[in-house]
Protein backbone atom coordinates (compact mmCIF):
# COMPACT_ATOMS: atom_id res chain seq x y z
CA UNK A 1 0.00 0.00 0.00
CA UNK A 2 2.71 2.45 0.98
CA UNK A 3 4.81 1.41 -2.00
CA UNK A 4 1.87 2.16 -4.26
CA UNK A 5 1.79 5.70 -2.87
CA UNK A 6 5.54 6.26 -3.06
CA UNK A 7 5.58 4.91 -6.61
CA UNK A 8 2.70 7.24 -7.42
CA UNK A 9 4.66 10.16 -6.01
CA UNK A 10 7.73 9.15 -8.02
CA UNK A 11 5.68 9.03 -11.20
CA UNK A 12 3.97 12.34 -10.45
CA UNK A 13 7.32 13.98 -9.74
CA UNK A 14 8.71 12.59 -12.99
CA UNK A 15 5.69 13.90 -14.92
CA UNK A 16 5.96 17.34 -13.41
CA UNK A 17 9.69 17.51 -13.99
CA UNK A 18 9.22 16.33 -17.56
CA UNK A 19 6.58 19.02 -18.03
CA UNK A 20 8.32 21.92 -16.36
CA UNK A 21 11.53 21.34 -18.30
CA UNK A 22 9.78 22.67 -21.38
CA UNK A 23 6.56 24.09 -19.87
CA UNK A 24 5.05 23.46 -23.26
CA UNK A 25 1.78 21.88 -22.21
CA UNK A 26 1.39 24.16 -19.25
CA UNK A 27 1.89 27.40 -21.14
CA UNK A 28 -0.41 26.22 -23.92
CA UNK A 29 -3.09 25.45 -21.36
CA UNK A 30 -2.74 28.79 -19.61
CA UNK A 31 -2.83 30.73 -22.87
CA UNK A 32 -5.76 28.72 -24.12
CA UNK A 33 -7.66 29.39 -20.88
CA UNK A 34 -7.12 33.13 -21.24
CA UNK A 35 -8.17 32.96 -24.89
CA UNK A 36 -11.38 31.22 -23.89
CA UNK A 37 -12.06 34.05 -21.43
CA UNK A 38 -11.41 36.53 -24.21
CA UNK A 39 -13.83 34.79 -26.55
CA UNK A 40 -16.45 34.75 -23.83
CA UNK A 41 -15.98 38.43 -23.16
CA UNK A 42 -16.79 39.01 -26.83
CA UNK A 43 -19.81 36.76 -26.55
CA UNK A 44 -21.19 38.39 -23.39
CA UNK A 45 -20.56 42.04 -22.95
CA UNK A 46 -18.50 42.20 -19.71
CA UNK A 47 -19.68 45.71 -18.90
CA UNK A 48 -23.21 44.43 -18.58
CA UNK A 49 -24.08 43.78 -14.97
CA UNK A 50 -26.12 40.69 -15.73
CA UNK A 51 -22.93 39.00 -16.88
CA UNK A 52 -22.01 38.36 -13.26
CA UNK A 53 -24.44 35.47 -13.45
CA UNK A 54 -22.25 33.55 -15.91
CA UNK A 55 -19.05 33.84 -13.87
CA UNK A 56 -19.54 30.57 -11.92
CA UNK A 57 -20.11 28.74 -15.19
CA UNK A 58 -17.11 30.36 -16.86
CA UNK A 59 -14.78 29.22 -14.09
CA UNK A 60 -15.64 25.64 -15.00
CA UNK A 61 -15.68 26.17 -18.74
CA UNK A 62 -12.09 27.40 -18.73
CA UNK A 63 -11.02 24.65 -16.33
CA UNK A 64 -12.47 21.94 -18.53
CA UNK A 65 -11.38 23.34 -21.87
CA UNK A 66 -7.83 23.98 -20.76
CA UNK A 67 -7.76 20.79 -18.72
CA UNK A 68 -8.66 18.63 -21.68
CA UNK A 69 -5.61 19.95 -23.54
CA UNK A 70 -3.38 18.72 -20.73
CA UNK A 71 -5.22 15.44 -20.26
CA UNK A 72 -4.76 14.67 -23.93
CA UNK A 73 -1.01 14.76 -23.45
CA UNK A 74 -1.01 12.88 -20.18
CA UNK A 75 -0.84 9.40 -21.65
CA UNK A 76 0.06 10.06 -25.26
CA UNK A 77 3.32 11.58 -23.98
CA UNK A 78 4.11 8.17 -22.47
CA UNK A 79 3.90 6.62 -25.91
CA UNK A 80 7.08 8.32 -27.06
CA UNK A 81 9.88 5.76 -26.73
CA UNK A 82 7.14 3.43 -25.49
CA UNK A 83 7.69 4.59 -21.92
CA UNK A 84 4.31 3.21 -20.90
CA UNK A 85 5.59 -0.30 -21.61
CA UNK A 86 8.59 0.51 -19.49
CA UNK A 87 6.29 1.42 -16.62
CA UNK A 88 4.02 -1.56 -17.15
CA UNK A 89 6.90 -4.02 -17.21
CA UNK A 90 8.35 -2.50 -14.06
CA UNK A 91 7.74 -3.74 -10.52
CA UNK A 92 4.88 -1.34 -9.88
CA UNK A 93 1.17 -1.70 -9.50
CA UNK A 94 -0.98 -0.27 -12.28
CA UNK A 95 -2.90 1.79 -9.75
CA UNK A 96 0.22 3.73 -8.86
CA UNK A 97 0.53 4.81 -12.49
CA UNK A 98 -3.04 6.09 -12.28
CA UNK A 99 -2.53 7.81 -8.94
CA UNK A 100 0.68 9.43 -10.11
CA UNK A 101 -0.98 10.74 -13.23
CA UNK A 102 -3.93 12.08 -11.24
CA UNK A 103 -1.56 13.92 -8.93
CA UNK A 104 0.46 15.40 -11.78
CA UNK A 105 -2.60 16.45 -13.79
CA UNK A 106 -4.27 17.93 -10.74
CA UNK A 107 -1.21 20.01 -9.97
CA UNK A 108 -0.93 21.32 -13.51
CA UNK A 109 -4.63 22.17 -13.81
CA UNK A 110 -4.57 23.90 -10.42
CA UNK A 111 -1.64 26.02 -11.55
CA UNK A 112 -3.54 26.94 -14.71
CA UNK A 113 -6.50 27.92 -12.54
CA UNK A 114 -4.31 30.08 -10.35
CA UNK A 115 -3.42 32.08 -13.44
CA UNK A 116 -6.69 32.01 -15.34
CA UNK A 117 -9.30 32.62 -12.65
CA UNK A 118 -7.84 36.00 -11.55
CA UNK A 119 -7.65 36.94 -15.23
CA UNK A 120 -11.32 36.03 -15.56
CA UNK A 121 -12.27 38.19 -12.59
CA UNK A 122 -10.21 41.11 -13.86
CA UNK A 123 -11.44 41.00 -17.44
CA UNK A 124 -15.05 40.68 -16.33
CA UNK A 125 -14.62 43.34 -13.67
CA UNK A 126 -15.83 40.97 -11.04
CA UNK A 127 -15.52 41.97 -7.42
CA UNK A 128 -15.11 38.93 -5.24
CA UNK A 129 -17.43 39.19 -2.28
CA UNK A 130 -18.01 35.55 -1.51
CA UNK A 131 -16.29 33.35 0.97
CA UNK A 132 -12.76 32.29 0.00
CA UNK A 133 -12.98 29.14 2.04
CA UNK A 134 -16.03 27.79 0.24
CA UNK A 135 -14.82 29.02 -3.13
CA UNK A 136 -11.54 27.12 -2.81
CA UNK A 137 -13.20 24.05 -1.36
CA UNK A 138 -15.66 23.86 -4.24
CA UNK A 139 -12.93 24.54 -6.76
CA UNK A 140 -10.90 21.73 -5.24
CA UNK A 141 -13.73 19.18 -5.20
CA UNK A 142 -14.81 19.97 -8.74
CA UNK A 143 -11.32 19.97 -10.21
CA UNK A 144 -10.47 16.74 -8.42
CA UNK A 145 -13.53 14.98 -9.86
CA UNK A 146 -12.72 16.31 -13.31
CA UNK A 147 -9.15 15.03 -13.07
CA UNK A 148 -10.16 11.65 -11.62
CA UNK A 149 -12.46 10.87 -14.53
CA UNK A 150 -10.37 12.76 -17.07
CA UNK A 151 -7.12 10.95 -16.31
CA UNK A 152 -8.88 7.62 -16.49
CA UNK A 153 -10.47 8.37 -19.83
CA UNK A 154 -7.24 9.87 -21.11
CA UNK A 155 -5.59 6.49 -20.52
CA UNK A 156 -8.50 4.80 -22.25
CA UNK A 157 -8.54 7.05 -25.29
CA UNK A 158 -4.75 7.01 -25.68
CA UNK A 159 -5.28 3.60 -27.28
CA UNK A 160 -7.07 5.23 -30.19
CA UNK A 161 -5.42 6.97 -33.10
CA UNK A 162 -7.72 9.98 -32.80
CA UNK A 163 -7.36 10.23 -29.05
CA UNK A 164 -7.55 14.05 -28.98
CA UNK A 165 -10.99 13.91 -30.54
CA UNK A 166 -12.18 10.91 -28.59
CA UNK A 167 -11.37 12.21 -25.12
CA UNK A 168 -13.84 15.14 -24.98
CA UNK A 169 -16.60 13.01 -26.46
CA UNK A 170 -16.09 10.41 -23.74
CA UNK A 171 -15.41 12.83 -20.93
CA UNK A 172 -18.08 15.53 -21.17
CA UNK A 173 -21.18 13.34 -20.76
CA UNK A 174 -19.62 11.69 -17.74
CA UNK A 175 -18.78 15.06 -16.23
CA UNK A 176 -22.28 16.46 -16.59
CA UNK A 177 -23.53 15.71 -13.05
CA UNK A 178 -20.33 17.02 -11.52
CA UNK A 179 -20.53 20.18 -13.57
CA UNK A 180 -24.15 20.84 -12.67
CA UNK A 181 -23.24 20.50 -9.01
CA UNK A 182 -20.03 22.51 -9.34
CA UNK A 183 -21.68 25.44 -11.11
CA UNK A 184 -24.56 25.58 -8.65
CA UNK A 185 -22.28 25.32 -5.64
CA UNK A 186 -19.98 27.96 -7.06
CA UNK A 187 -22.91 30.28 -7.67
CA UNK A 188 -24.11 29.87 -4.11
CA UNK A 189 -20.63 30.48 -2.75
CA UNK A 190 -19.87 33.50 -4.94
CA UNK A 191 -23.18 35.19 -4.31
CA UNK A 192 -22.70 34.43 -0.66
CA UNK A 193 -26.27 33.41 -0.20
CA UNK A 194 -27.75 30.26 1.14
CA UNK A 195 -24.57 28.45 2.04
CA UNK A 196 -26.72 25.50 3.01
CA UNK A 197 -27.36 25.07 -0.69
CA UNK A 198 -23.67 25.11 -1.48
CA UNK A 199 -23.03 22.49 1.16
CA UNK A 200 -25.55 20.06 -0.27
CA UNK A 201 -24.12 20.50 -3.76
CA UNK A 202 -20.68 19.97 -2.29
CA UNK A 203 -21.90 16.73 -0.78
CA UNK A 204 -23.03 15.55 -4.21
CA UNK A 205 -19.63 16.49 -5.62
CA UNK A 206 -17.79 14.59 -2.91
CA UNK A 207 -19.99 11.56 -3.49
CA UNK A 208 -19.24 11.77 -7.20
CA UNK A 209 -15.50 12.11 -6.53
CA UNK A 210 -15.39 9.17 -4.16
CA UNK A 211 -17.53 6.89 -6.31
CA UNK A 212 -15.58 7.53 -9.49
CA UNK A 213 -12.26 7.43 -7.73
CA UNK A 214 -13.05 3.95 -6.43
CA UNK A 215 -14.39 2.78 -9.79
CA UNK A 216 -11.45 4.18 -11.76
CA UNK A 217 -8.93 2.74 -9.34
CA UNK A 218 -10.48 -0.69 -9.67
CA UNK A 219 -10.86 -0.60 -13.43
CA UNK A 220 -7.57 1.05 -14.33
CA UNK A 221 -5.57 -2.15 -14.51
CA UNK A 222 -7.86 -3.41 -17.27
CA UNK A 223 -6.88 -0.42 -19.37
CA UNK A 224 -3.19 -1.03 -18.72
CA UNK A 225 -3.31 -4.74 -19.51
CA UNK A 226 -3.41 -4.30 -23.24
CA UNK A 227 -2.99 -7.18 -25.61
Amino acid at each position, binding site marked *: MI*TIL*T*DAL*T*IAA*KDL*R*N*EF*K*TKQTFSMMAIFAVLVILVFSFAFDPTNNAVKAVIPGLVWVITIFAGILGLNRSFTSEL*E*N*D*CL*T*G*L*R*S*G*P*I*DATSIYLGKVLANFTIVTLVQIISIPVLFILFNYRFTGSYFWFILILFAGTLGFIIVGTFLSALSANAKNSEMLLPVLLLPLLSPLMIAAVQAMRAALENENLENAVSWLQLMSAYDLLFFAACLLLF*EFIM*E*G*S
Partner: protein
Amino acid sequence: MKELETMLELKNVTKVLGNKLILRNISLSLGEGETLAVVGPNGAGKSTFFKCTVGLLQPSGGEIILDGEIIKKKSVAVKKKIGFLGHESFLYSNLTPFENLKFYGKLYKVSDLEHKSMNLLKEVGLYLFRDVPIRSFSRGMIQRLAIARVLLAEPNILMLDEPHTGLDQEAVALLNKIIKEKQKNGKSILIISHDFEQVHTLADRVAILKKGVIVDTIQLDGKMSLNEMKEWYDKVVMGG
Protein backbone atom coordinates in the same frame (compact mmCIF):
# COMPACT_ATOMS: atom_id res chain seq x y z
CA MET B 1 29.04 -31.06 -15.12
CA LYS B 2 26.85 -29.76 -12.39
CA GLU B 3 23.13 -29.46 -12.86
CA LEU B 4 22.05 -25.93 -13.59
CA GLU B 5 19.56 -24.28 -11.34
CA THR B 6 16.48 -23.27 -13.32
CA MET B 7 15.97 -19.54 -13.55
CA LEU B 8 13.07 -19.29 -15.93
CA GLU B 9 10.66 -22.02 -16.79
CA LEU B 10 7.71 -22.02 -19.16
CA LYS B 11 5.23 -24.81 -18.66
CA ASN B 12 2.78 -25.47 -21.49
CA VAL B 13 2.33 -21.79 -22.17
CA THR B 14 -0.50 -21.03 -24.55
CA LYS B 15 -1.66 -17.65 -25.71
CA VAL B 16 -4.80 -16.89 -27.63
CA LEU B 17 -5.20 -13.42 -29.11
CA GLY B 18 -8.52 -12.69 -30.72
CA ASN B 19 -9.46 -15.94 -32.38
CA LYS B 20 -5.88 -16.87 -33.14
CA LEU B 21 -3.76 -19.31 -31.26
CA ILE B 22 -0.45 -17.48 -31.16
CA LEU B 23 1.52 -19.73 -28.83
CA ARG B 24 0.82 -23.40 -28.35
CA ASN B 25 2.09 -25.42 -25.45
CA ILE B 26 5.46 -23.83 -25.17
CA SER B 27 7.70 -25.48 -22.61
CA LEU B 28 11.17 -24.12 -22.18
CA SER B 29 13.58 -23.73 -19.37
CA LEU B 30 16.53 -21.47 -18.89
CA GLY B 31 19.18 -22.37 -16.39
CA GLU B 32 21.05 -19.99 -14.17
CA GLY B 33 23.93 -18.42 -16.06
CA GLU B 34 22.68 -19.77 -19.35
CA THR B 35 22.01 -17.74 -22.47
CA LEU B 36 19.13 -18.82 -24.63
CA ALA B 37 18.30 -17.27 -27.97
CA VAL B 38 14.90 -17.65 -29.55
CA VAL B 39 14.87 -17.20 -33.31
CA GLY B 40 12.18 -17.71 -35.88
CA PRO B 41 10.54 -16.32 -38.99
CA ASN B 42 8.29 -13.25 -38.85
CA GLY B 43 4.84 -13.92 -37.49
CA ALA B 44 5.98 -16.94 -35.52
CA GLY B 45 4.81 -15.35 -32.28
CA LYS B 46 8.21 -14.19 -31.04
CA SER B 47 7.03 -10.88 -29.70
CA THR B 48 3.97 -12.41 -28.04
CA PHE B 49 6.24 -15.00 -26.49
CA PHE B 50 8.45 -12.25 -25.24
CA LYS B 51 5.60 -10.16 -23.85
CA CYS B 52 4.38 -13.16 -21.91
CA THR B 53 7.78 -13.82 -20.39
CA VAL B 54 8.29 -10.24 -19.24
CA GLY B 55 4.83 -10.21 -17.74
CA LEU B 56 3.22 -7.71 -20.09
CA LEU B 57 0.75 -10.30 -21.27
CA GLN B 58 -0.97 -12.95 -19.28
CA PRO B 59 -0.75 -16.37 -20.93
CA SER B 60 -4.11 -17.98 -21.68
CA GLY B 61 -2.90 -21.29 -20.39
CA GLY B 62 0.11 -22.74 -18.63
CA GLU B 63 2.44 -20.91 -16.32
CA ILE B 64 5.70 -19.02 -16.36
CA ILE B 65 7.94 -19.51 -13.38
CA LEU B 66 10.75 -17.12 -12.64
CA ASP B 67 13.20 -18.02 -9.92
CA GLY B 68 10.65 -20.31 -8.30
CA GLU B 69 7.79 -17.82 -8.45
CA ILE B 70 4.88 -17.89 -10.85
CA ILE B 71 4.50 -14.64 -12.78
CA LYS B 72 0.95 -13.43 -12.37
CA LYS B 73 -0.82 -10.22 -13.08
CA LYS B 74 -0.43 -9.02 -9.53
CA SER B 75 3.06 -10.32 -8.85
CA VAL B 76 4.89 -7.06 -8.70
CA ALA B 77 7.98 -8.15 -6.80
CA VAL B 78 9.05 -10.77 -9.34
CA LYS B 79 9.30 -8.16 -12.03
CA LYS B 80 12.17 -6.58 -10.15
CA LYS B 81 14.30 -9.54 -11.14
CA ILE B 82 13.71 -8.99 -14.84
CA GLY B 83 15.89 -6.66 -16.84
CA PHE B 84 13.84 -5.87 -19.92
CA LEU B 85 15.58 -4.26 -22.88
CA GLY B 86 12.98 -3.65 -25.54
CA HIS B 87 12.85 -2.29 -29.05
CA GLU B 88 12.22 1.13 -27.65
CA SER B 89 14.31 2.76 -24.97
CA PHE B 90 11.50 3.54 -22.44
CA LEU B 91 13.31 6.79 -21.70
CA TYR B 92 11.83 10.26 -21.27
CA SER B 93 13.20 12.67 -23.85
CA ASN B 94 12.92 15.81 -21.76
CA LEU B 95 14.85 14.35 -18.88
CA THR B 96 18.60 13.94 -18.61
CA PRO B 97 20.28 10.51 -18.45
CA PHE B 98 20.79 10.95 -14.74
CA GLU B 99 17.15 11.87 -14.12
CA ASN B 100 15.96 8.96 -16.21
CA LEU B 101 18.08 6.53 -14.23
CA LYS B 102 16.99 8.06 -10.96
CA PHE B 103 13.33 7.73 -11.90
CA TYR B 104 13.57 4.06 -12.82
CA GLY B 105 15.89 3.39 -9.92
CA LYS B 106 13.27 4.68 -7.51
CA LEU B 107 10.59 2.51 -9.05
CA TYR B 108 12.86 -0.55 -8.84
CA LYS B 109 13.78 0.41 -5.26
CA VAL B 110 17.49 0.49 -5.99
CA SER B 111 19.62 1.28 -2.97
CA ASP B 112 22.53 3.70 -3.17
CA LEU B 113 20.98 5.05 -6.31
CA GLU B 114 23.11 8.11 -7.08
CA HIS B 115 26.36 6.28 -6.78
CA LYS B 116 25.20 3.36 -8.89
CA SER B 117 23.76 5.51 -11.63
CA MET B 118 26.95 7.54 -11.87
CA ASN B 119 29.00 4.38 -12.16
CA LEU B 120 26.71 2.98 -14.82
CA LEU B 121 26.80 6.20 -16.77
CA LYS B 122 30.59 5.97 -16.75
CA GLU B 123 30.42 2.36 -17.84
CA VAL B 124 28.27 3.12 -20.88
CA GLY B 125 30.25 6.24 -21.66
CA LEU B 126 27.56 8.82 -21.03
CA TYR B 127 29.02 10.38 -17.91
CA LEU B 128 29.89 13.60 -19.68
CA PHE B 129 26.36 13.96 -20.97
CA ARG B 130 24.67 13.18 -17.68
CA ASP B 131 22.93 16.54 -17.45
CA VAL B 132 21.89 16.95 -21.07
CA PRO B 133 18.26 16.17 -21.98
CA ILE B 134 18.35 13.03 -24.07
CA ARG B 135 16.21 14.57 -26.80
CA SER B 136 19.42 15.51 -28.61
CA PHE B 137 21.00 12.06 -28.31
CA SER B 138 21.74 9.75 -31.20
CA ARG B 139 20.10 6.36 -31.40
CA GLY B 140 23.27 4.67 -30.25
CA MET B 141 23.58 6.89 -27.20
CA ILE B 142 19.97 6.32 -26.26
CA GLN B 143 20.43 2.59 -26.59
CA ARG B 144 23.46 2.74 -24.33
CA LEU B 145 21.42 4.59 -21.74
CA ALA B 146 18.67 2.02 -22.15
CA ILE B 147 21.22 -0.68 -21.32
CA ALA B 148 22.23 1.28 -18.25
CA ARG B 149 18.58 1.49 -17.25
CA VAL B 150 18.23 -2.27 -17.48
CA LEU B 151 21.39 -2.93 -15.48
CA LEU B 152 20.56 -0.44 -12.77
CA ALA B 153 18.22 -2.76 -10.89
CA GLU B 154 20.77 -5.60 -11.02
CA PRO B 155 18.31 -8.10 -12.50
CA ASN B 156 18.78 -11.85 -12.18
CA ILE B 157 17.68 -12.38 -15.73
CA LEU B 158 18.12 -10.19 -18.77
CA MET B 159 15.46 -10.29 -21.43
CA LEU B 160 16.56 -8.69 -24.65
CA ASP B 161 14.16 -8.06 -27.51
CA GLU B 162 16.18 -7.74 -30.73
CA PRO B 163 18.81 -5.69 -28.94
CA HIS B 164 21.11 -5.28 -31.93
CA THR B 165 18.72 -3.78 -34.44
CA GLY B 166 19.54 -0.23 -35.37
CA LEU B 167 22.79 -0.09 -33.44
CA ASP B 168 26.10 1.06 -34.84
CA GLN B 169 29.21 -1.09 -34.59
CA GLU B 170 30.44 0.67 -31.50
CA ALA B 171 27.19 0.19 -29.62
CA VAL B 172 26.99 -3.46 -30.69
CA ALA B 173 30.49 -4.02 -29.32
CA LEU B 174 29.57 -2.34 -26.05
CA LEU B 175 26.35 -4.30 -25.75
CA ASN B 176 28.13 -7.59 -26.41
CA LYS B 177 30.83 -6.69 -23.94
CA ILE B 178 28.26 -6.02 -21.26
CA ILE B 179 26.28 -9.15 -22.05
CA LYS B 180 29.42 -11.29 -21.88
CA GLU B 181 30.32 -9.71 -18.57
CA LYS B 182 26.90 -10.56 -17.20
CA GLN B 183 27.26 -14.10 -18.49
CA LYS B 184 30.46 -14.42 -16.54
CA ASN B 185 28.67 -13.16 -13.45
CA GLY B 186 26.22 -15.99 -13.79
CA LYS B 187 23.19 -14.06 -15.01
CA SER B 188 20.64 -15.78 -17.20
CA ILE B 189 19.91 -14.16 -20.52
CA LEU B 190 17.04 -14.58 -22.93
CA ILE B 191 17.49 -13.05 -26.39
CA ILE B 192 14.96 -12.74 -29.16
CA SER B 193 16.74 -11.92 -32.37
CA HIS B 194 16.98 -12.05 -36.13
CA ASP B 195 20.67 -11.49 -36.14
CA PHE B 196 22.35 -14.91 -36.49
CA GLU B 197 25.83 -13.58 -36.14
CA GLN B 198 25.11 -12.05 -32.74
CA VAL B 199 23.07 -15.03 -31.64
CA HIS B 200 26.00 -17.24 -32.56
CA THR B 201 28.49 -15.22 -30.58
CA LEU B 202 26.30 -14.83 -27.49
CA ALA B 203 24.01 -17.80 -27.02
CA ASP B 204 24.65 -21.17 -25.40
CA ARG B 205 21.47 -22.61 -26.77
CA VAL B 206 19.17 -21.66 -29.62
CA ALA B 207 15.49 -22.43 -29.94
CA ILE B 208 13.42 -22.00 -33.05
CA LEU B 209 9.89 -20.71 -32.73
CA LYS B 210 7.70 -21.43 -35.70
CA LYS B 211 3.96 -20.87 -35.93
CA GLY B 212 3.71 -20.62 -32.18
CA VAL B 213 5.56 -23.82 -31.42
CA ILE B 214 9.15 -24.44 -30.34
CA VAL B 215 10.10 -26.80 -33.16
CA ASP B 216 13.73 -27.46 -32.28
CA THR B 217 16.48 -26.46 -29.91
CA ILE B 218 20.18 -26.89 -30.31
CA GLN B 219 23.16 -26.62 -27.99
CA LEU B 220 25.90 -24.41 -29.41
CA ASP B 221 28.62 -24.53 -26.74
CA GLY B 222 31.04 -22.95 -29.17
CA LYS B 223 31.35 -26.15 -31.17
CA MET B 224 29.00 -25.29 -33.95
CA SER B 225 30.03 -22.81 -36.61
CA LEU B 226 27.85 -19.96 -37.78
CA ASN B 227 27.23 -21.62 -41.12
CA GLU B 228 26.26 -24.89 -39.55
CA MET B 229 23.78 -23.03 -37.38
CA LYS B 230 22.31 -21.25 -40.38
CA GLU B 231 21.97 -24.50 -42.27
CA TRP B 232 20.25 -26.08 -39.31
CA TYR B 233 17.87 -23.12 -39.07
CA ASP B 234 17.00 -23.21 -42.78
CA LYS B 235 16.41 -26.93 -42.62
CA VAL B 236 14.10 -26.68 -39.62
CA VAL B 237 12.15 -23.68 -40.84
CA MET B 238 11.76 -24.77 -44.45
CA GLY B 239 11.12 -28.43 -43.84
CA GLY B 240 7.77 -29.56 -42.50
